[in-house]
Each structure stands twice: as structure tokens, then as C-alpha cells.
């Protein structure tokens, strides 16, 4: 008998494994560190639309895991989303909502709206009670105009004219608070976003490398990957590196001879056809 109707999905977080996880921690298990994005992400509304910005450093504790990580994710042709927090969580949740928005576009025959993406994100994050560690800056331009929102891991949202998230958010916010005003032009908006991200890159350890910018206006989106590269690599020796034999100190020597070849014996019954 085939599966006729799909069972309604059970909502909320499944707490089945929580006792087992607590037991493992008590027994001394070291949880592997999540790859977090440290991050400075920003967004602002200007006269013709929204500008989103992000740095490109992904960290694993004190180590830089990726020097040129893309933090501005595609949601719809007219909606993009910057993600801070656990990299896998931001990737997975934005991919999932992007997919749902595409199906919604087919079903309605209309361009996606920013509030639709917002509602899908916040309901998903709330149902996981903050365990999906994704802090997002969502921006886009739809039939009702330009929109900018922040989404927190527990599922709350804000609607703002300018916003920053991530470990570099205070550095970036100081730039916005002093220089933001309504009715910025496109060039002014991009410059201000780049300045805010640079403030995060240079003053926050969790952020670094390059500046990515995304400009969304009516009917047009420009994704300016690596808009600024304020941290170029300048130390490559043109001569290359030479390693002299004997440069590495030998501490001890152990010689093990290779085992003699094992003879394979032909014969035996063939496998059943």
C-alpha cells in the first residue's frame, strides 16, 4: 500500500537526544568547535533601494578557516541575506528558504516579497528554539518598496533603516550612527557600507579580509563580490623558497624492511552466477 497522504510535520525542537548529550558532556566529551563566521554584516536603506555589506573571514576558534568566504546569500533575484553565526546554519537556512521562495513564486506567479522571506526564516528559527545559530541581515526590493530586517537566532526580527550584526557589529554601528542619514545616494550608500565593514575588519578579530557589497534596487541587483580588498598579501618572495639538504635536524632513525610479497593462490570454487 503506497503512502497516500503526507503526515503533517511535527513542530518544535526534538528534545530526544538532550539527556544523552548531557551525559556525554559529564563524561568528559569535548564537543568539536563550530566553524563560526565571527563577522561583520551590515545593511542600509538608501533613496533607491538597499545596500548590504559583509566581511569575508570565517573562523574556527582562533584559526581563520576561510579567508574569502561568501556571507551574502541569494534568497530571490530581488532579495539577498547576510549571515552571521554558525556558517553551516546560515548556509542551510538561507538555501532552504530560497528554495521555498522559488516554489512560492511558481504557485503565486509573482515576484517574492521580503516579508515572505522574513516570515519563513523567523518561523523556522523559532521552532528550533535558538539552536540554529543564524543571525541574519535580510534586505531586498519588492513591489511594496525597499526593506531591511534583522533576524536573531531565537526568531525575533527588527525592521530598521540601517542594521549591523555579528562580532564586528559595534564597530560598524559606530560608523552608521555617526554618518547615516535618510536619502543617501547610491554612491554614498556603498561608501558608507564599505566604511562600516572596514571598521569591523580592522577593529574586530573575528572579522577580516575583504569587503563584499550587494546593491538591490527596483528591477536590478548588483552583487559586488570583493568590492574592496584592504588586506592584500604582500609578502610573497619572488625568489621562491629553497630548502638545503641537512637543514632539518634528524632526531632519530628507525628502518623497517618491507614485508615479503604474499602469494595469491589460484583456484577455489567460482562464485554462484
Amino acid at each position, binding site marked *: *500500500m*503506497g*503512502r*497516500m497522504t503526507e503526515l503533517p510535520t511535527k513542530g518544535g525542537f526534538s528534545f530526544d537526544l538532550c539527556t544523552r548529550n548531557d551525559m556525554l558532556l559529564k563524561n568528559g566529551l569535548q564537543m568539536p568547535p563550530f566553524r563560526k563566521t565571527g563577522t561583520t554584516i551590515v545593511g542600509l536603506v538608501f533613496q533607491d533601494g538597499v545596500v548590504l555589506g559583509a566581511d569575508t573571514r570565517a573562523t574556527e576558534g582562533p584559526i581563520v578557516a576561510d579567508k574569502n568566504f561568501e556571507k551574502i546569500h541569494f534568497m530571490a533575484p530581488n532579495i539577498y541575506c547576510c549571515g552571521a553565526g554558525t556558517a553551516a546554519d546560515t548556509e542551510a537556512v538561507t*538555501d*532552504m528558504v530560497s*528554495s521555498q521562495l*522559488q*516554489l512560492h513564486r*511558481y*504557485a503565486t506567479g509573482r515576484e517574492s516579497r521580503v516579508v515572505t522571506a522574513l516570515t519563513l526564516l523567523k518561523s523556522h528559527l523559532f521552532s528550533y528554539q535558538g539552536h540554529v545559530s543564524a543571525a541574519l541581515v535580510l534586505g531586498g526590493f519588492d513591489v511594496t518598496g525597499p526593506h531591511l530586517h534583522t533576524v536573531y537566532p531565537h526568531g525575533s526580527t527588527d525592521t530598521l533603516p540601517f542594521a549591523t550584526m555579528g562580532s564586528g557589529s559595534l564597530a560598524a554601528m559606530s560608523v552608521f550612527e555617526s554618518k547615516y542619514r535618510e536619502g543617501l545616494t547610491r554612491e554614498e550608500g556603498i561608501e558608507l557600507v564599505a566604511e562600516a565593514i572596514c571598521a569591523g575588519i580592522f577593529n574586530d578579530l573575528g572579522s577580516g579580509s575583504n569587503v563584499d557589497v550587494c546593491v538591490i534596487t527596483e528591477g536590478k541587483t548588483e552583487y559586488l563580490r570583493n568590492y574592496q580588498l584592504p588586506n592584500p598579501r604582500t609578502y610573497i618572495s619572488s625568489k621562491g623558497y629553497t630548502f638545503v639538504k641537512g637543514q632539518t635536524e634528524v632526531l632519530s632513525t628507525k628502518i623497517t624492511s618491507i614485508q615479503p610479497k604474499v602469494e595469491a593462490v589460484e583456484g577455489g570454487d567460482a562464485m554462484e552466477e
Partner: protein
Amino acid sequence: MGDSQYSFSLTTFSPSGKLVQIEHALMAVGSGQTSLGIKATNGVVVATEKKLPSILVDETSVQKIQLMTPNIGVVYSGMGPDSRVLVRKSRKQAQQYFRLYKETIPVTQLVRETATVMQEFTQSGGVRPFGVSLLIAGYDDNGPQLYQVDPSGSYFSWKASAMGKNVSNAKTFLEKRYTEVMELEDAIHTAILTLKEGFEGQISGKNIEIGIIGTDRQFRVLSSSEIDDYLAEVE
């Protein structure tokens, strides 16, 4: 019919080896409005009659040709609501494929998944087969493709095909007119002429629908004014 004792249940074979319900489903398709598809060297065209039950129906609210992905479209003959369910499921499967492989689904894969759904409904309890045959038109890395999927779940790749009321005349017409070197524009004209063959009444942009996909790999449904322009060229 001697098989009538076995025709009530989908999951019971008749002594002649047929599943009579599927035959009946094909009859439902055969009494539906004519639709057809033609594969050209640089694209695919699908077309269908759009006869509305009354002049009072707002024809702009009806669209028979649908998109499954930006580069794959579909037209049906038979029961409209059944086709809507299939299109919805196929869209979801295309999205799931993309989520997993980060690549748009190839046309053959989507056809296979759609056909699998249709087959499942011929081997389950308490359900009936879909009363539609689909013509799936797409353009991917393997070039332009046209597939027909039947209520049984079997699918075939076609160079040109027709389904619905006028299928035998339409197929004969297509066999005569089809050439291997046909380009998309010729294919559109041929499609219109084929529909015109069996059309009752005055053909216009308001009572047929045409969908095309070319080398740009964007499937789109032509507007009624575009169809009227093509009709004028064909006169």
C-alpha cells in the same frame, strides 16, 4: 467488454494482462483538448487549445501551460486539476534536486521523477491514476528535449507528438510536416497549422496557448498578442 469484471479495481490485472483503469485513464486523456509539441534544432514549442466552457469565463485567468523550472515547461491533455497536482509535485522535486546537487535538474531526471509519481498512483490502494498525459519541453546541456508521460507512468522522447481529441489527424499532419532541420520559428508555425487542422471555430490568440524555449534556456508562454502575430504570418 469481457474484462469488465476486473475493471473496478486499479490493482487487479484482467485475464488479458491489462490494468483496465489505466486504459480508461487514457480514454480520459483522449477526450481532452488537443495539445502538441515539436522539437526543433534550436528549441522546443508546445501548444494547446484553450476552449473555455463559456464566453463568460475570464480567459486571462486560465493558463494551461506551466513552468516546472526556468528551463522546463509542461502542457497537458485531460483533467486540468490532475495536471496541477503533478506540476506542484514536480516543482518540489526539482527544488530538492537543486538543494542536494546545487545544479538545475536535467530534463530527463525531472521526467523520470514525474513518471515515477504517476506510476505510484497505479500501484497503490485507494487512489486512481492521473487522468492526464503530459508533454514536457525543456532545454539543458543535452540540448532541446520533448517527452510525453502517460497515466501509466511510461515516458517517451519525441521529435514531435500530439495528444487529446484530434490526436490521429494531428500526428499524421506532424509526420508529413516534420523535418530534422526545422528551426524554432518554423516549428511554431507548424504547431499553429497543426492546431488549426482540427480547430472548431475561429482560431485566435485567445483560444490557443503556446509555450516556447530556445537557446536562452528560458521557458516562456507567449502572450495572446504574440500568438496573433504568428497567426497573421501563417495565414
